[in-house]
């Protein structure tokens, strides 16, 4: 099985190594076609809305049903959002784009052709920056760019449900704007593919183009895998796996397929170009169809839609409002704000969280690091308290199916400004970091400000040295053994003295000051 912890050494060649059969002389070459549903008010070619989980066939109209006489009308917002992603990923946006019909018969496609883009897509070229996993989670892994071929816009199809004797079709999804992001065969392991999908998802959701929830079918992939001998320039025989709808399926499917293909090559069995189906139950792939019985889609330009000119004004208006790329943001957090990689990477995997963090940091610009820590640790912990335990927040796919952070934050009583005020009172020495944890929980529940909770509960830290000195003397008297141990060189033994002081001060003693006083008194005793 693959090991994600194998940290790649520097250099591109080495990144190809951490896969199944890594000891062999073969390397895998992987390309992805990723479909992403675009968040728009209406469908791609008609005004009816698209949403997930509505009663079947309620989000339909004459155009969706492909009744006689209907015509498509372009959704400008979907075009704008696709261009936006293209510009974020450094694609070239050709001046003219057009729509083509992809003809095939299947009941999920009401017209029996899909409106797509064949030879004049909206975006050409570009790349996706990815981060490979480091050996240690708290360290930043290697970054590289995965080249893109193109991004085009098309319409989604309906959904079939098969029963014993018949099948039912739901056209709610049919006609949903769908962008297809096609990568070059530029990846070599399931880990790279995972990093690629994570980066795409973070980028697309940061721009508000889609939530990319794979469980809701908002993001799906077709994976092309081939295997060749290291050093060979020629690509091996390509196998395509269609419609993988979860990240673990993508990973397992790729790992299985690479192993299978290498096995074949080793045994001298010729590989055939084919489409295979991934069976999640058995974790294997099965042949679906070979190149010979592949569809002839009879592509031709759609005569119902005119070619579309993309004006310079449109491009500059989109360019003027491009959101920051997640990895640019991560670098800014680390370089300009001094955040540790661990906090920066968690934040940058979620643009809603970044928004919250930046609002808090703006309210108290002196200590972004402490604010980031509080957001990443305390806030996320409280936000997910009602949810199933989260393995890792950096792993954005693991949170699929849960309420998105943006929604949770919208319902959160604790404002970014209040969170900043809590860091501020800690920095001012008004309360201890320990106490801050408790105050945070209360603030999160009530929405009150840090100051008012500290005030109301009389939590203000005790920094009165005279009073603390009395508590310290009492503690030393009652814990002779610990004092002796400390004197004997056991630094940790002093902690046994702090407890009683804290207890005596009802938890309000300034821990730093207590330590200082204790050391001074014990030193005096010597």
């Amino acid at each position, binding site marked *: 099985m693959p090991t994600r912890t194998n940290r790649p050494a520097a250099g591109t060649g080495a990144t190809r190594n951490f896969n199944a059969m890594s000891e062999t002389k073969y390397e895998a070459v992987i390309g992805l076609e990723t479909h992403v549903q675009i968040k728009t008010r209406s469908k791609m070619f008609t005004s009816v809305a698209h949403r997930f989980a509505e009663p079947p066939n309620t989000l339909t109209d*004459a155009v969706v*049903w*492909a*009744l*006689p*006489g*209907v*015509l*498509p*009308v*372009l959704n400008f917002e979907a075009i704008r959002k696709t261009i936006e992603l293209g510009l974020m990923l450094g694609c070239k946006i050709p001046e003219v784009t057009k729509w083509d*019909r992809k*003809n095939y*018969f299947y*009941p999920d496609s*009401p*017209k*029996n*052709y899909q409106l797509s883009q064949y030879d004049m897509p909206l975006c050409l070229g570009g790349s996706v920056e990815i981060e490979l996993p480091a050996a240690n989670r708290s360290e930043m892994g290697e970054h590289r760019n995965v080249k893109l071929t193109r991004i085009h816009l098309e319409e989604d199809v309906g959904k079939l449900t098969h029963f014993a004797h018949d*099948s039912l*079709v739901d056209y709610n999804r049919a006609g949903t704007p769908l962008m297809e992001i096609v990568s070059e065969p530029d990846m070599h392991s399931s880990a790279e593919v995972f990093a690629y999908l994570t980066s795409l998802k973070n980028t697309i959701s940061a721009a508000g183009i889609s939530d990319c929830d794979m469980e809701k079918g908002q993001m799906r992939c077709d994976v092309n895998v081939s295997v060749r001998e290291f050093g060979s320039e020629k690509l091996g025989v390509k196998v395509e796996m269609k419609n993988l709808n979860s990240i673990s399926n993508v990973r397992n499917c790729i790992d299985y397929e690479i192993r299978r293909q290498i096995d074949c090559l080793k045994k001298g069995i010729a590989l055939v170009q084919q489409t295979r189906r991934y069976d999640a139950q058995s974790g294997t792939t099965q042949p679906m169809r070979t190149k010979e019985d592949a569809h*002839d889609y*009879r*592509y*031709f330009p759609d*005569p*119902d*839609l*005119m070619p579309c000119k993309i004006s310079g004004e449109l491009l500059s208006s989109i360019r003027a409002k491009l959101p920051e790329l997640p990895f640019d943001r991560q670098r800014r957090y680390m370089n300009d704000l001094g955040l540790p990689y661990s906090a920066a990477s968690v934040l940058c995997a979620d643009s809603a969280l970044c928004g919250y963090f930046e609002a808090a940091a703006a309210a108290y610009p002196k200590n972004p690091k402490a604010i980031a820590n509080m957001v990443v640790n305390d806030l996320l912990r409280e936000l997910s308290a009602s949810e199933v335990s989260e393995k890792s927040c950096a792993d954005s796919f693991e949170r699929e199916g849960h309420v998105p952070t943006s929604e949770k934050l919208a319902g959160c009583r604790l404002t970014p400004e209040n969170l900043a005020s809590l860091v501020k009172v800690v920095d001012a020495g008004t309360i201890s970091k320990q106490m801050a944890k408790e105050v945070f929980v209360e603030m999160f529940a009530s929405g009150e400000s840090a100051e008012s909770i500290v005030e109301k509960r009389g939590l203000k830290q005790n920094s009165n040295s005279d009073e603390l000195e009395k508590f310290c003397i009492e503690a030393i008297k009652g814990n002779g053994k610990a004092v002796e141990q400390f004197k004997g060189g056991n630094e940790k033994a002093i902690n046994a003295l702090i407890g009683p002081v804290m207890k005596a001060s009802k938890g309000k003693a300034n821990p730093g000051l207590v330590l200082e006083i204790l050391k001074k008194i014990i030193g005096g005793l010597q």
Partner: protein
Amino acid sequence: MSEEVFYKSISELEKMLDSRQISAVELAKAFIDRKNAVDSKVGAFISSNEGELLESARKSDERRAAGGKLSELDGIPVGLKDLLAVRGQKLTCASRMLENYVSPYTGTAMKKLENAGALFWGRLNMDEFAMGSSCENSALQTTRNPWDLSRIPGGSSGGSAAAVSAGECAASLGSDTGGSIRQPASLCGVVGVKPTYGLVSRFGLAAFASSLDQIGPFARSVRDAAVVLKHIAGYDRLDSTSANVPVDDYPARLSPDAFAGKKAGVPKEYFSSGMDPEVRVIVEKAVEKCGELGAEIVEVSLPHTDLAIPVYYIIATAEASSNLARYDGIRYTHRSSKAGDVVDVYFKSRAEGFGEEVKRRIILGSYVLSSGYYDAYYLRAQKVRTLIRRDFENAFESVDVILAPTSPTTAFKAGEKSSDPLSMYLSDIFTINVNLAGLPGLSLPCGFASDGMPVGLQMIGKTFDESNLLSYAYAYEQACGWNRCNPKL
């Protein structure tokens, strides 16, 4: 010339309605009676909606009584080719495939007519999915030419032409992909207009070949056609190929002196050897008449004319093969009762639901789009289409209008060509170019052959120059009056 109310022009009927000589309900009844009297012979109607017509006529009378006439079309019964969508009405495309289909929405051109107060009257026969030139490809109805019931009315909008010719409705709408309005208009002795591509919205027109289809009117006079066209034309957001151009008040711009100082081109390629000699003489006479009316007649050349038929049968069938894919037995069409699995549903439903000519064109269209053939056929045809368009652009640099025959023959006998698709295809030889070039064209009566069958003169205009085109036709019609002849039924 007839005094019968059902043979009166829209302008005359409007005057009668305005002066309360007749009510809209009485007029509707007159057309219902006429239909009941002659349609068993003519067969223009696939279905009719007497109750709906009378109800909407009553509402029209109320509007007039209240002084709120919607337009000159208020209270005028207009027939619809059975591929135009009107909410609650059947839309069969004259096919078994859609025999029981009822449209849940109204298309744009029809909505505009409705808003003008026109009354929808009947669903008119056609060749199945508009594929044919004689109406013989209808799976549901046989239509005959009102001038000679042993002959075909032309096609594909044969029912729309025959219904107007026989006085079963005051005007009608058809669609023209390669001549489907002009050819039956010519063969039935009425006026038919194919507008510039993009002038009339195609939303609500069941598509045959999207880049060629246009909705247009049939009427008893050029003026009537101009009135109907004025109301259905105009930009529509729901049709991306619709043009955002202003719509002229066509009837107001009609002038009997339209030809004065204008140049009319006669394409030498159109007076070919394949043409019926009698038709040729009649059309040449009509051209001379235009000269007498002030036009300078000049010869023009459209050198790529002979490529039009092959180009058309590649482009139109390619688009049709894709447009008709939606009729699959899954949702609202005929579904074979013998079908097992999904592939079986497709094969058997389509085998049973489509007629021979439709299947022939779907197969041809699928073939020319197939991988490996696309460049040689579809792409090449598109390039030749550009050459054909340029032929017209060049010609229109020196002339204002082109005069030509509409059809190489008068209406032929039923069954005469139905077993020979190629000779049937050739009957559109003078009209197809106009669709390929996207230009406006019309046909109007210009005389009768010795067998008593009407002959049509085709006028082809510049892009979006309907106003002048209709005016030339009006000038000729005013001078000759062939349109005032009616068949004896």
